[in-house]
């Protein structure tokens, strides 16, 4: 195992962490704000990939797909919000889990009907195909793009949440919804807007992952588990928690698969159990 091996694993881990981040940030903020457990978030990610592949086929442009898929997924999310999620907000976590878990299978079957049960690929655009020479190693350019995309979203979200008034409104509402309302904040509208952003990021993650992972009907479920672990480890509703949790899970899964393949399947769960025992509210909880 030379330096190149470690750099390669580091880049792989970073890229996987960014993907986890795009998904977990939506899930965690939706939970933090709406107190809603949306297991269908992974299905939205899958839809992002399939819609992106079709959009790329229709428009002939990857970039158009990268914009259109999140928009389409947001619209689907908005329909879900008004038909189910808003009504289930006070129904308790068990009902929410049951309904959104059921939605996963509805969406999977809809994808089977629409696209068939085969893995579909998406070609990275010309500029991002091939590999980039990084000195010691050369690394697929598209994966570097994924890392950059994740970092950009992370930076934008961090600036919006920590430096702007809308960010202050979101933080205040996550912390104390009743007091936020008493200060005139329209928490309902704010929640809906945040929900839409969460859906858009799930869609973005789906279409952005398609050239690397290819779209399958199982992709939404297989990413859901590590995403939920990220959210729980980081602390429900916390942006910093989602960032830190994504890197922890991304790095543990990648490095353990490379170094300790026998333990890879359980290490993340061991970590999850440890966090739940030692810091049940997560490493960086949203509420102080």
């Amino acid at each position, binding site marked *: 195992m030379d330096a190149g091996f470690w750099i390669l694993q580091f880049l792989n881990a970073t890229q996987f962490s960014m993907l986890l981040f795009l998904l977990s940030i939506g899930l965690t903020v939706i939970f933090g704000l709406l107190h809603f457990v949306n297991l269908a978030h992974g299905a939205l990610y899958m839809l992002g990939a399939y819609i992106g592949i079709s959009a790329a086929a229709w428009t002939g442009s990857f970039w158009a797909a990268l914009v259109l898929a999140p928009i389409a997924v947001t619209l689907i999310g908005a329909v879900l919000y008004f038909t189910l999620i808003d009504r289930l907000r006070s129904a308790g976590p068990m009902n929410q889990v049951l309904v959104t878990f059921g939605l996963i299978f509805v969406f999977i079957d809809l994808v089977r009907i629409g696209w068939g049960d085969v893995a579909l690929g998406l070609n990275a655009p010309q500029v991002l195909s091939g590999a980039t020479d990084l000195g010691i190693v050369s690394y697929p350019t598209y994966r570097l793009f994924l890392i950059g995309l994740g970092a950009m979203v992370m930076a934008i979200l961090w600036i919006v949440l920590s430096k702007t*008034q809308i960010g*202050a*409104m979101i*933080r*205040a509402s*996550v*912390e*104390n919804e*009743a*007091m*936020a*309302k*008493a*200060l*005139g*904040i*329209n*928490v309902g509208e704010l929640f809906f807007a945040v929900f839409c952003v969460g859906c858009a990021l799930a869609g973005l993650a789906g279409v952005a992952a398609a050239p690397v992972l290819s779209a399958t009907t199982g992709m939404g479920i297989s990413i859901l588990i590590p995403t939920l672990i990220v959210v729980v480890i980081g602390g429900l509703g916390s942006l910093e928690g989602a960032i830190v949790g994504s890197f922890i899970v991304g790095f543990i899964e990648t490095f353990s698969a490379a170094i300790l393949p026998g333990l890879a399947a359980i290490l993340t769960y061991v970590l999850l159990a440890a966090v739940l025992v030692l810091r049940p509210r997560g490493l960086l909880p*949203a*509420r*102080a």
Partner: protein
Amino acid sequence: MLELKGVVSGYGETRVLHGTDFVVAAGSVHALLGRNGVGKSTTLKTIIGHLPLQDGSIAFQGSSIDRSPQVNARRGIAYVPETRDIFGSLSVQENLELAGRLAGVNPEWTIARVIDFFPNLKDRLSNGGQELSGGEQQMLAIGRALMTDPKVLVLDEPTEGLAPIIIQQIFAKLKELKSGGMTVLLVEQNLSFALGLADDVSLMSRGQIAWRGTATDLRNDDVAHEKYLGV
């Protein structure tokens, strides 16, 4: 300014208010007093919209209050809860700015004026809300309410858990607001604090108003004291 008629409210199935009536006159300080558990905080929460009005009516400036707190806040009802509810993840400045969104253009209260009013907050603007002392939190909670340019200030036990010296400061500040014409509805356990500020007093007992009069009336009414406030 604020008129409650036959208000029935509570938590879920548990009714706490059984027909509460009183009127807060514009420009006055109205103290709502009584023993623990008689429904004072519940009354305040129902006025601002945190608890649903199950029966009766609450009128604010002649029209009925809304069922959503954010609409009531926009119409000028500012609430300072017993727990103060400072946003700990926001800086002091952000706590104030957030409330300032409600005020229109050329607001009466700006951050500069709030700092002028509560100089203790001056060096704390960039501190996180969770770093404040109890007294500073109370000042920020009142300052935050003022930033909304309220027409009525609804205060729930502003002296609770505070040192006497801080209580004196808060008292002086509320007195200053009163002489500026602010309408205040005050729930308070500290009787001398409340009577020092109040024009009118309503004494609550079991979810209803059992006695009403001026602060001077209450000072002279030993029976009411004994019956509704004595321990």
